[in-house]
């Protein structure tokens, strides 16, 4: 398999922080992987994802997405990415259709292909009947499903998911995971997934990376990683590596 994301010796130091949020981190994500990025609070996940999305450049090092960096090929790099933030990044006073239509146009989609894409995703995730209702009238699970569709509309090569199933009912969670698996299987969509739901990560991801204090601690195939650390689950591996101490800050 070829490499989709190549992170080379990336460091990011915030101005007022005592130590780097990301420290000389290198890792690769292969095309077609469902890649779990795990780590405690403050490990550097959000900073790494922000740099992957092109929100700000690394202090040093390079990030290549499909062979391009944001600094030299911003448009190509961003077009290759779809983002599903942890927050419900939708306009509550617009309907699901209006939200997705707007966001689709912002990705450069238009016409029937956009309409068909919206309809297909809404239908698969069971929202077609409610697509002309305002988002503010939706349940938490319905909002999460629309939030996911907004990142999928342009069929990105890399889909970045930040806690995509947090706070949703079991049916919505299952629908989201099933749809993501289908997109990965049928479209070859690479998925970068971050979550504190380690059981879900173990079930969903074929590759797991654990980072802490801005550094990559371990990375490997999910099953191999469990075997390598003589554990029975990713949760055990995670606790073995990161310890039991609270990470409130």
């Amino acid at each position: 398999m070829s490499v989709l994301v190549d992170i080379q010796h990336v460091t990011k130091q915030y101005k007022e922080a005592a130590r780097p949020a990301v420290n000389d981190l290198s890792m690769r994500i292969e095309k077609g992987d469902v890649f779990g990025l795990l780590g405690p609070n403050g490990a550097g996940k959000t900073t790494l994802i922000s740099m992957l999305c092109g929100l700000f450049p690394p202090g040093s090092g390079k990030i290549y997405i499909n062979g391009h960096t944001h600094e030299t090929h911003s448009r190509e790099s961003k077009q290759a990415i779809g983002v599903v933030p942890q927050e419900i990044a939708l306009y509550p006073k617009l309907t699901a259709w209006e939200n997705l239509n707007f966001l689709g146009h912002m990705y450069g989609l238009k016409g029937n292909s956009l309409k068909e894409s919206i309809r297909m995703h809404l239908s698969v995730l069971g929202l077609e009947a409610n697509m002309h209702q305002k988002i503010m009238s939706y349940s938490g699970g319905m909002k999460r499903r629309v939030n996911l569709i907004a990142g999928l509309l342009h069929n990105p090569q890399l889909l970045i998911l930040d806690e995509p199933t947090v706070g949703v009912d079991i049916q919505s969670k299952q629908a989201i995971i099933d749809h993501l698996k289908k997109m990965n299987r049928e479209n070859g969509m690479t998925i970068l997934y971050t979550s504190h739901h380690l059981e879900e990560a173990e079930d969903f991801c074929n590759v797991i990376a654990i980072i802490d204090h801005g550094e990559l601690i371990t990375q490997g195939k999910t099953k191999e990683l469990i075997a390598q650390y003589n554990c029975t689950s990713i949760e055990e591996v995670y606790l073995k590596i990161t310890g039991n101490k609270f990470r409130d800050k």
Partner: protein
Amino acid sequence: MKLLYSLYKEYKVLIRDRAGLAITFIMPTVLILIMTLIQDSTFKSVNESSVPLLYVDRDHDSLSQTLEKYINNSKFFVITKKQLGNEEVKKEIAQGHYFIGIIVPENTSKKLRERSMARIAKLLNSFSGDSTSTAEATGTDTSGITLNLFFDPITKKSFKTTISNSIERIISQIEMQGMVSALNEKMSETFPDAKPAAMENTPLVSVTEEYASYNNSTIIPNAVQHNVPAWTLFAMFFICIPLGGNIIKEREDGSAFRLLTMPGSYFIVMLGKLLTYTIVSLIQFALMLLVGLFVLPLLGLPQLNTGDSLPLLFLIALSAGLAATGFGLLVGTVASTHDQAALFGAVFIIILAAIGGVWVPTFVMPDIMKTISVVSPLNWGLESFYAVFIRNSTLKEIWPEILKLWLFFGFTLGGAYLFHKYKRLK
């Protein structure tokens, strides 16, 4: 295409935001109505072209007619003639319908003629050693004649004195004419063959007056001409609260994050906001003009005189709208929370409005405040509107104010961009 959809999205979000719409359109309408009604009488007290005067002529003779003519010619008053009793006149003034009431009693002209004649006769007789006047001989009353003046109780003392002096000056001229006529009559008795030329009654000494204000403003607006543009500008700049809130909300709910990850979309969305809210500013302006033209006259207030140049008014409104929207973008970018944006935005706009002459017009401010007022973008807009509404100014005269508004827009937009970049790179 992206921009079009961004505009459409902003339009949908705005149209469904009832609180935002209320702030944007209802607040300025209500403020214009209330403030114009409150300030109407105050403006009348300082606006020399429209002091309402109730004139009760019971004399119907030369003095009352000449007095009325002089008052009319002074361009100082708007005369309403009625036949009322003294108490009714007082009541009309007390109710604020008129600033001044003048009653010219019956036979005032006749008395003036008689008394002028008596005084002249006494004067001329004194040359022949006879100190007894005809009046004394005939028992004519030579004491002063009284005209009744009533003033609105809210009238400032200085204004009252000015008005009294003006009326007394007019009466002095009439008295003088009466005396000269009497003298002519007496002299013609002594020199029956003489044919005296008519005496010129133009003043020998005249005083020229000119406003020496810093901006050569020579005309003071009325309450409508002040309040319509003032509160329209206030509402335009108040857009910073819904606009700032809109930007912060996008940041808080992750939409901004999502938009920033899309190719080129964040700046398209910001441009969409800029254009949408500038259009909203123009709609606000058009709506407030309509209020000034059609609603205020229904409440007994003067109709807004929009001047001669609608394109120039549009340019001022566009410039002010851009300045206001730029400020809103800056507030939304700098503030971290809704509360911060609402508090900072509201307080800042109220201060800019206060020093800019929205609440209290700059022409009644002390000199120090007049100097400070020129830093407020609301003042630049307001002065431009005054210039077009009142002085029919052209772009040649108001371009410095327009340029300031555009520079303010550039400064706030640049500030928002730099702050956005700084926050992202922090």
